[in-house]
């Protein structure tokens, strides 16, 4: 059976399009082209047949190009596949057989045939040429503020959000799910807004709160918690590709945690999102910026830094600027601008020239200009930085630097005075002394002095100096004084060059191949900026200008996806033509408009969503929904979501009672399996810093903590708008056996001992269940835990020495060790449950 037979009944819209070949094309026809044909043309044909090369006169970059064809005549005859050279070439039906590298997959050939048959639909903007808006693409249109659908009184739908959702469910013949229980709801809210567990006391207080606004009160309380800034700050840091190291080969350490703390603080004080954006992108260009506004500009200093020997720093500076364009495009506009780095964007109306016009906004940072291939250069490679020392620290540093200056001058003079004795030293070396020298020095000594290259002479001079006691003493003294330099906290920030770097189109994206010069500008498809010589500050303000429809849509969509597992636009990183259309376009626009009209308040947006009936539904599986809407795009229920890597840790920490509440500060080094860090320091934290939230774990880009990566943390190399949610055996091994989680389970056992003194085993198991899962166990669940506890206790009582080994935390002197070890096992089982690491 051919694919064609399948197509007809499934796609009546295509059949309509076929009846009238030529424009205007149906959306279905366009989508068919975009999905089934354009990728083939792009990947298989356009390497040779593009507008630039036009091999054999043909370009497949536009419909017009195919109609005009090449040296052999027109490539397509819309509506007539049999008369189209393109089809006979890819079918290998005649003398011309394409592509040259081998025949296309049959499916691709059939798709091309089909496409020609229905009139070769091609989106308008691309057909008409570059630089003109793709008028028909929904994401570029202004935000309307649609009226929520009207529904009869007294229905499920309580808020405008619910009216949109219910109307859509109804049209599909579906009904929503009932509200989740109070126990589920409070745990859901704590996990989503704060990332820590509610205590059993908080759960029961909420479950028994009879006031009509009990839930609203709860929402306000959690939103006011400083943990809110941590929880949502970490989501933002995914966008900022925040890390504590430089990436690439050397992957040295960097200090930028103050930027992380700025994000947490900004969210906690509900800094309006438009200012949140402007301060991060261009805080340094604001009039009289505060120091905190400068710290905010760390957002775009989270780029990688390649300090590998021998690199061309200009190349990696350009890479950083490209990354800033990528991140800005995806984070605020939902557009993969980076695709236009080497060529015009294949799918969206962004030309290569426009990419470099956008690039020009970020090309002017005062960074990486000069030579860094030496030790002093390396130190400067981080600039610009902002320091946070005390007056006293600066004074001490100045004094020590001055002292070092004097010492180094004296050392240089001393060494100079020694050099005349070098020939004497060389000729006087005994065979034993020579044998003790490094191989390189030995080789040089075998060469006659006049034949030695300058650099090799330097090696010999160093060897000579190194054996002199006076030199050794001076070096030691200098090292000792250097060690006294105060450690002054600092953070990477932005600073504009006084004179702008000229920006050029880079041919094929190659930093050495400069094309035509360009000036800063925004893509033509988006609302105009209308400013002469715009700056980075103008760009930031333009991103949050009321006329820009993308930033609010993209932002509310990303917030939505954290609550429901998928956005209203499922491709939260792509609002372009290859992205997915919104499942609820009216709702998306309503949320976006409400967000902007409310003064860009993030807390208000969260409140809107979490108080909706849509959010508060049960997440239970329903056969009817699984059948009609398997991916639950219509939200007939909530989704169960495995929590993020950091939150897996945070939940276990909060169950254990060990969680250190400190917010912010330098990153910490919690326990990790031995052997992962091979070339990186990991000074394992002791005391409270061992039990900090996951987001404070020091992040080495080339060697991240396995506990983070196994649970799908992004790699911080570039923006991540969404995380994966894998389920793997290595996760199971981590939760079962990892040192950290074993400590958390012990903490939980100690907490149970303190909170259930003198109560029986069933009471204690019930309490453990409440701490971890926020609900009472069912009878079989309780029975399972009780018999586990009994079995473990039995073994540890028989083998008390093993109980001693199992307990690695310090325990009270009067504690019953076998009992604590047994409850450690019970606690660990609870921390391993799917339900424990899932937001129901």
């Amino acid at each position, binding site marked *: 059976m051919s694919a064609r037979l*399948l197509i007809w009944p*499934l796609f009546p819209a295509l059949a309509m399009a076929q009846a009238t070949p030529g424009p205007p094309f149906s959306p279905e026809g366009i989508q068919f082209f975009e*999905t*089934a044909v354009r990728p083939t043309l792009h990947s*298989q044909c356009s390497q040779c047949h593009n507008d630039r090369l036009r091999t054999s006169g043909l370009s497949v970059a536009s419909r017009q190009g195919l109609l005009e064809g090449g040296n052999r005549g027109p490539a397509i005859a819309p509506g007539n596949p049999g008369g189209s050279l393109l089809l006979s070439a890819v079918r290998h039906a005649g003398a011309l057989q394409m592509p040259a590298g*081998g025949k296309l*997959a*049959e*499916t691709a050939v059939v798709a091309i045939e089909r496409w020609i048959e229905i009139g070769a639909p091609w989106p308008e903007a691309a057909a008409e040429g570059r630089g003109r808006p793709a008028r028909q693409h929904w994401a570029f249109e202004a935000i309307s503020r649609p009226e929520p659908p009207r529904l009869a009184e007294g229905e499920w739908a309580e808020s405008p959000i619910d009216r949109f959702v219910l109307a859509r469910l109804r049209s599909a013949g579906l009904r929503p799910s009932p509200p989740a229980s109070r126990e589920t709801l409070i745990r859901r809210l704590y996990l989503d807004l704060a990332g820590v567990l509610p205590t059993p006391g908080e759960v029961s207080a909420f479950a028994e709160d009879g006031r009509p606004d009990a839930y609203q009160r709860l929402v306000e309380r959690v939103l006011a918690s400083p943990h809110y800034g941590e929880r949502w700050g970490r989501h933002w840091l995914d966008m900022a590709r925040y890390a504590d190291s430089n990436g*690439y*080969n050397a992957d040295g350490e960097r200090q930028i945690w103050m930027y992380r703390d700025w994000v947490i603080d900004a969210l906690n004080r509900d800094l309006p999102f438009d200012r949140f954006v402007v301060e991060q992108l261009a805080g340094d260009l604001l009039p009289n910026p505060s120091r905190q506004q400068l710290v905010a500009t760390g957002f775009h200093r989270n780029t990688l830094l*390649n300090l590998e*020997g*021998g690199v061309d720093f200009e190349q990696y500076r350009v890479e950083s600027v490209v990354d800033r364009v990528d991140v800005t495009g995806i984070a605020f506009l939902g557009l993969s601008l980076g695709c236009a780095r080497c060529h015009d964007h*294949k799918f969206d109306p962004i030309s290569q020239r426009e990419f470099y016009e956008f690039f020009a906004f970020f090309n002017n940072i005062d960074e990486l200009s000069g030579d860094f291939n030496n030790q002093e250069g390396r130190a400067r490679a981080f600039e610009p930085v902002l320091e946070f020392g005390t007056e006293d620290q600066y004074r001490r540093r100045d004094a020590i630097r001055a002292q070092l200056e004097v010492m180094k001058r004296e050392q240089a003079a001393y060494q100079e005075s020694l050099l005349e004795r070098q020939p004497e030293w060389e000729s006087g070396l005994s065979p034993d002394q020579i044998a003790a020298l*490094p191989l390189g*020095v030995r*080789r*040089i000594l075998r060469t006659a002095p006049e034949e030695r290259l300058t*650099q090799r002479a330097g090696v010999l001079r160093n060897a000579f100096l190194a054996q002199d006691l006076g030199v050794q003493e001076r070096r030691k003294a200098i090292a000792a004084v250097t060690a006294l330099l105060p450690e002054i906290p600092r953070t990477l920030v932005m600073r504009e060059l006084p004179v702008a770097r000229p920006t050029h189109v880079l041919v094929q994206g190659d930093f*050495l191949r400069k094309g035509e010069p360009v000036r800063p500008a925004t893509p033509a498809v988006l609302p105009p900026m209308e400013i002469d010589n715009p700056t980075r500050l103008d760009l930031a303000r333009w991103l949050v200008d009321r006329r820009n429809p993308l930033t609010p849509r993209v932002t509310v969509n990303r917030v939505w996806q954290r609550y429901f597992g998928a956005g209203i636009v499922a491709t939260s*990183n*792509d609002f372009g033509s*290859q*992205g*997915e*259309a919104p*499942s609820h376009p009216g709702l998306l626009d309503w949320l976006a408009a409400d967000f902007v009209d409310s003064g860009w308040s993030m807390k208000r947006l969260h409140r809107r969503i979490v108080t909706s009936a849509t959010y508060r539904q049960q997440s*239970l599986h329903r056969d009817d929904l699984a059948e009609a809407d398997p*991916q639950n795009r219509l939200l007939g229920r909530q989704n169960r*979501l*495995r929590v993020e890597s950091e939150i897996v840790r945070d939940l276990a920490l909060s169950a254990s009672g060990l969680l250190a509440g400190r917010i912010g500060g330098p990153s910490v080094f919690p326990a990790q*399996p031995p*052997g*992962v860090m091979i070339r990186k320091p990991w000074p394992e934290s002791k005391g409270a810093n061992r039990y900090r939230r996951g987001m404070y774990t020091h992040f080495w*880009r080339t*060697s991240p903590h396995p506990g983070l*990566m196994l649970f799908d943390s992004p*790699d911080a*190399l*570039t923006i991540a708008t*969404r*995380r*994966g949610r894998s*389920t793997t055996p*290595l996760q*199971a*091994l981590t939760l*079962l056996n*990892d040192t950290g989680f074993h400590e958390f389970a012990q903490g939980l056992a100690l907490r149970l001992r303190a909170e259930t003194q003198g109560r029986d085993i069933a009471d204690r198991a019930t309490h453990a269940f409440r701490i971890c899962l926020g609900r009472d166990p069912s009878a079989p669940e309780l029975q*399972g835990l009780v018999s586990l506890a009994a*079995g473990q206790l039995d*073994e540890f009582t028989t083998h008390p020495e093993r109980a001693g*080994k*199992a307990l690695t935390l310090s325990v009270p002197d009067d504690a019953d060790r076998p009992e604590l*070890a047994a409850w450690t*096992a019970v606690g660990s089982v609870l921390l*391993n*449950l799917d339900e424990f690491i899932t937001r*129901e």
Partner: protein
Amino acid sequence: MTHRQQQLLGATRRHFLGDCFVGLGSVALGGLLAESAAQAAPSVQPPNPLAPRPPHFTAKAKRVVYLFMSGAPSQFETWLWRPKLRELDGQETPDSFLDGKRFAFMERFTEQRPKLLGPQRDFRQHGQSGAWVSDVFPHMASIVDEMAFVHSLHTENFNHAPAKLFFNTGSTRYGRPSMGSWITYGLGSEASDLPAFVVLRSGEQNLMGGANIWGSGFLPTAYQGVEFLRTSDPIPNLSTPRGFSRRQQRARVEAVRELNQARLEAVGDPEIATRIAAYELAYRMQSSGPELMDLASESQSTLDLYGAVPGESSFANNCLVARRLLERGTRFVQLYHTGWDHHGNRVNNLADKLDEVALEVDRASAALVTDLRQRGLLEDTLVVWGGEFGRTPMGEIQELPGRNHHIENFPMWFAGAGIKAGQTVGEVDDLGFFITKDPVEVHDVQATILHLLGLDHTRLTFRHQGREFRLTDIGGRVIRQLLA
């Protein structure tokens, strides 16, 4: 259309897709392409992402072991004999070779013009094929008739991290899935007690590029490489916490299973079933892992063949572990050994450091091929050996003899399944600057490895950010000459 498989997966495993979630908007189109989907891509059986899947066509190779020589071995001291270069040792490099070319550490060139550096080792011909091999590799030289050489590789970037990314992921930029991930995605896993894609590292220097070079990129994380660490506990957290007996551990795992099962029945989320299965494999790995790593169970003659010593961390041990993994169903084993970046300083040079690293690698590389041959595994196992680029015919102006990075030509070798052994593909000019015949690209190597596994590199695709991605990006040709 892998797109369609993604939808199938998405329907049963909601969150499996991460960033590549495909929703209702394209379901209708998915239906349109249903049949083509079935033809064009490996059929994924939900819900297990690692279920074995048939290849596109009959495979020559069932498994691959890739010995990656990190740092870029010098071709002039290993596989490429250039007598002319020895003749011109110490002479100025002809202008025609330098004009318009860029090299790493460029600024040093302007201080002092680098001179040609003759081969630092002697070469001899070996085997029936008469292949030239330098004296640093006596063991590999003895099995040249098992190998097919390519002398005409070239690549795009002369810095280690990007060049290594290119070999491992098909792109010089971060974010793409590694070759092992693509293969696991395409073919699933044959190993019930062990991961399908394993990474083993050795050598004292920084690997450069880090975990990203065996990451799953935008593919689901179920396909990422599992790194066995260089410790007594090579799979992280494989050991039960101290004090707990095996029976107690079983009781814990059993309790987790029962409670998860109860939850599955209460809420009906199939993801819980996946987690239950993951715990079962984890528990099995607690036994299979130590058994796998127990090299003392190998005969003394096998240990001697490799130069492996139980309990040590070395390339030789890793080669032996690789064979044991391949025997147990692991499909792709990626080894990395560092120490090849021979610039001419004390740590990295062609004087003594070359011999050290050659000693670490030579015997075990040859032993792996020999051992696989003896066990009848070489027929359907592909062995690949090579670095990320080559080194310059000029020497560096340094303390010791050494060479700079060179991307215009470098060699690799292949052995085993589907390979026509005893030949050399490609030629290079007399001084070893440029390729003169049959250039081979990195994407071609990747296309060829996939081909031998029965996968068409143009059809093994994944939809991400609106387009179909593949390992070979928009390039890649199968190296036909290499095939038996």
